[in-house]
């Protein structure tokens, strides 16, 4: 099924049938060959309408987009719908990616997470979300399940585990649960000012623990 070239990530320029290119048709590949910096380069091609690059971008990020969207939304059908919207957003708005304002992965995941949260909140206005009380423990457990064999996931899990309990709960409820800081404060019975501070402290610690400071 996978029609990507061996080795995978080199974006192939489009070549419509019947319109051979002149002077050879290779666009020089990203010399770095690094998947993540490569993602940024491919977004640059996507911004110019390159569907082959979009295919490569899909291969790299679709599972993460679907994963985080589903973590927040839960409902599989809605998650799929929102994932599709996010991926189409990436196609339409690739020109908005600016490497000076963070990595391509962060740009994509910010888009995905915000879309998921927006969906949850708009649905929430119509009906209260289920299992509200029980939710406090769920996200972290699920992160633990997700560890699987991936070293990268294990690292995230270990860094989450290194936070204080209040920090960790704030992050998991906010990020995976899609709650606002005010809702998190209510769920945990802690003043909002404290929660805001804990959220920021927690992300700073996570960032340092993961070594992703930019």
């Amino acid at each position, binding site marked *: 099924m996978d029609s990507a070239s061996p080795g995978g990530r080199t974006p192939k320029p489009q070549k419509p049938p019947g319109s051979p*290119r002149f002077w050879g048709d290779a666009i020089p590949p990203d010399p770095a060959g690094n998947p993540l910096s490569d993602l940024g380069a491919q977004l640059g091609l996507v*911004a110019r309408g390159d569907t082959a690059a979009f295919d490569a971008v899909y291969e790299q990020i679709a599972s993460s987009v679907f994963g*985080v969207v589903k973590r927040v939304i839960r409902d599989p059908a809605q998650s799929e719908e929102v994932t599709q919207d996010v*991926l189409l957003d990436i196609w339409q708005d690739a020109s908005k990616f600016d490497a000076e304002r963070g990595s391509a992965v962060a740009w994509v995941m910010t888009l995905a997470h915000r879309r998921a949260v927006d969906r949850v909140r708009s649905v929430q206005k119509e009906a209260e979300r289920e299992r509200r009380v029980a939710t406090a423990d769920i996200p972290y457990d699920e992160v633990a399940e997700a560890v699987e064999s991936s070293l990268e996931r294990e690292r995230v899990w270990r860094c989450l585990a290194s936070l204080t309990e209040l920090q960790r709960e704030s992050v998991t409820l906010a990020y995976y649960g899609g709650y606002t800081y005010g809702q998190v404060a209510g769920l945990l019975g802690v003043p909002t000012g404290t929660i805001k501070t804990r959220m920021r402290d927690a992300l700073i610690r996570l960032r340092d623990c993961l070594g992703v*400071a930019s």
Partner: protein
Amino acid sequence: MKRPQLEREPHTLAGAYAMDAISAEDRARFERHLARCAECAQEITSLREATARLATATAQTPPPGLKERVMAAAATTRQRFPVTADVPARSARVKDARIRTRAWFGSLAWRGRLVVAAGAVATVAVLGAAVVAGISNGTMRQQLSQAQASSQQVAAVLTARDATMMMRTVGGGGTVTIVMSHTMHALVFTAAGLHALPASRAYELWLIGSAGDRPVGMFPQASNHMVGPVIASGLRSGDRLALTVEPAGGTSRPTSPMMLDLVL
């Protein structure tokens, strides 16, 4: 008056903001604050690298069929213009003509910048007229000199309500940028960084569609600098724009492989 809390301690919302754990109103206010606080913006950037890892740690295989649906949807969905708030900064940064072209046209979406863009284009249109002076095809020469006599026409296409921008790289090097308006039946064409040609050859631009292959103009010799803007009028819906290399004297039909074949 609406934002005493944020003015007092804006930084404390950085974590909540980076996790979208914030109401729409707070989000908008915090973003206004970010626009004025480079340090805060930098912190958000770094925190989002962390939240991105929280996201990728949840990766799971998407449902079968999703990719086909996404690719099919992309194939029939227009891409949006770049926006907007960072255009001035970006314009100041760019050095080469190619990127400058993109910055101009990128500013299209921001109507407030259009006067600037149109003015700049008008200036270049005069240079463009000189570049195209060597044109050989009679009809087209007439059409082009007409077009360039009125740089206002260029500005009119750029500012048309339905103005649409497309950019493509050209095989062998170079970038073309067009802005088209179907209501005005016209497009503005620019190119940068095209491969230099021997004196006996020239680039020729075509509109191809149900009305036949129509030559739009020739560019005798492309240096690495920008070519155009050139107006192509008589645009019809369903047309494609093509670029070929032809004998310097010009031809009435494309005779060489298309380096660019753009559905308009």
